[in-house]
């Protein structure tokens, strides 16, 4: 900001400085010209034949001119008989070098042609420019010094003053915008600012944040309402159907239908829970301040899922060996890995294999979960993280598991990479951030 100001000022000064000689010359020449015209006027007014003769007769040589010099050669006057050429200008100014009494100087010269008593004369009045040149130089020097001083002073003043002026602005950016991840944590204390603009900015920001916080609150409220209002009737319905099932007078057909309804209810309940889970993660409603040990998580998971792994005759290979501790939400990380492993079970071949493997790639910790399943095509990989996507139409499952995995990973700044070979298997790699970040 200050530098930009200084640069524009420098530019203006440069332009001024370049224009200076022209300006100075103009002013000085006009001044000299006026003086010369004045002198000419005086000379012509007082002109008489005697004087002309005096001038010319005193002339030593035969050129019939008369010159008169002031001391120090600052001015001279020359009168000579020169016939006037037609179309010649009566009065003209020029800069010329003249040698006067052996000394060469530049002069501003007024040349005037006139006719006196049928005789043509040329009058030249000169004024030395050497002083003017000296003067111009001094003026230029003086002006440049003044300009440079002004430039420096304004630059420094700018830097400090702008800094002082913008202090509240940076404070607003820092405390009100950069450090706020959640509207609820927003700091509403007004920023101390002398300038009305910043106080207004602060006020408007506060108001905006209030509106956002209100919306956030409403969304949380909505999520909580939905979960309560939808899940309670489901629980009620489930109880009723389960009680109905105890009735011995039911025929097989009715039992099947009730069981089917219970299954649908269960599915409905899980879809709602899953969608709520995604909403909550995306709404930053989870804290991420637990230390997570992956050995522990994988071991717990294997225990939980052993039955399903055995049921499919799958070989589960746990090669996790690093004691990597990650800071995040344990429940969510558990769900993340759970979903990837159950996915690996579901889409595996009978008697297949699941390998969980961890490593450090250039200081970045990663865990991979590889199955020996049906594999995915490129276009399938693009879609698997979308809600309700399913890999093949004959597989059941509402395809929320991977959408949840993706939300949890995003919440923890974890990157998920998928590589797959059709009919050989799929590998999900979790790349953890190098410096554990959390919201």
């Amino acid at each position, binding site marked *: 900001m200050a530098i930009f100001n200084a640069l524009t000022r420098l530019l203006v000064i440069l332009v001024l400085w370049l224009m200076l000689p022209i300006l100075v010359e103009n002013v000085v020449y006009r001044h000299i010209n006026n003086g010369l015209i004045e002198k000419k006027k005086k000379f012509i007014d007082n002109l008489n034949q005697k004087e002309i003769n005096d001038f010319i007769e005193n002339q030593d040589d035969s050129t019939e001119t008369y010159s008169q010099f002031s001391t120090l050669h600052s001015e001279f006057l020359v009168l000579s008989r020169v016939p006037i050429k037609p179309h010649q200008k009566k009065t003209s100014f020029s800069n010329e070098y003249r040698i006067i009494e052996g000394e060469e100087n530049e002069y501003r010269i007024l040349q005037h042609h006139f006719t006196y008593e049928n005789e043509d004369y040329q009058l030249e009045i000169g004024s030395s420019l050497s002083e003017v040149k000296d003067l111009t130089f001094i003026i230029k020097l003086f002006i440049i010094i003044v300009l440079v001083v002004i430039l420096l002073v304004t630059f420094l003043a700018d830097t400090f003053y702008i800094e002082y002026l913008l202090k509240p602005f940076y404070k607003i950016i820092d405390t009100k915008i950069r450090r706020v991840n959640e509207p609820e944590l927003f700091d509403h204390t007004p920023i101390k600012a002398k300038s009305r603009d910043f106080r207004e900015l602060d006020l408007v920001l506060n108001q905006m944040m209030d509106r956002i916080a209100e919306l956030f609150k409403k969304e949380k409220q909505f999520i909580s309402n939905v979960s309560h209002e939808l899940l309670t009737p489901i629980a009620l319905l489930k109880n009723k159907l389960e009680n109905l099932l105890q009735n011995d007078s039911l025929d097989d057909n009715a039992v099947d239908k009730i*069981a089917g309804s219970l299954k649908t209810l269960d599915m409905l309940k899980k879809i709602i829970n899953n969608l709520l889970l995604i909403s909550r993660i995306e709404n930053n409603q989870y804290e991420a301040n637990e230390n997570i040990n992956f050995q522990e998580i994988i071991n717990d998971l294997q225990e939980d899922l052993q039955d399903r792994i055995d049921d499919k005759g799958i070989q589960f290979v746990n090669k996790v060996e690093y004691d990597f501790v990650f800071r995040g939400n344990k429940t969510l990380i558990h769900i993340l890995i759970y979903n990837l492993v159950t996915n690996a079970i579901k889409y595996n071949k009978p008697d297949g294999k699941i390998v969980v493997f961890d490593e450090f790639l250039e200081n970045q910790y990663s865990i991979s979960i590889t199955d020996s399943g049906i594999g995915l095509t490129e276009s399938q990989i693009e879609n698997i993280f979308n809600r309700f996507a399913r890999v093949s139409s004959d597989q059941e499952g509402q395809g929320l598991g991977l959408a949840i995995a993706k939300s949890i990973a995003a919440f923890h700044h974890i990157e998920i990479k998928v590589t797959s070979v059709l009919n050989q298997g799929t590998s999900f790699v979790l790349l953890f951030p190098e410096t554990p970040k959390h919201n």
Partner: protein
Amino acid sequence: MNILIVEDNRELAVEVYDFLCNTGYICKIAKNCADALEEFGSNDYDAMLLDLGLPDGDGFEVLQAVRKTKSKIAVIVLTARGELDDRINGLHLGADDYLTKPFALTELAARLFAVIRRIHGFTLNNLSIHGFLLQLQDYKVSFNEVPINLTKKEFDIFQYLVLNKNRVITRLQLTEHIWGDILEVNSDSNFIDVHVRNLRKKLDKHTSIDWFETVRNVGYRINE
């Protein structure tokens, strides 16, 4: 069995959680009324430990809501208040028992166990059915004093079916109560059948078990 711990003090909640998990229950923690009601809606709980002073309301509100659904859930109220009014109020609204903070975890476990048993109509520490005796506290089963070696899951299934005797228990219910909350939609539950088959094989060695019914494709029932 699923236990919901409704407690806003995280430290205490985790302590109870760890203890009960080690005892063999499946636990979840809810830290306020809203969470508790939601958990209650989304999962089938066998028991609830309810703190009264919650950040967003009174625990009694949760108790009232839970009792309205008429589900068979054991509720033990945990409170620092200990006043008589609260006790009367709580029992009136349908709390099954009371514990005043601070309490010993073993005391909590014993009360919980007793309440669950009572709710299912058993009064003894051990469940007996057709000559089989289930020692609930040390996970042992015997038939005429001959011990039977069951896995943890087999014991849990047996115990749950016995506690809910004469009722059809669906596979979904069994999964929920023994494996806990499975988030996955449409997860297959074939593995339950494997455990039930093994359990029946082990029981069948001792006596005829025609009282251990498979109800079509739906679930299982143990008749008295």
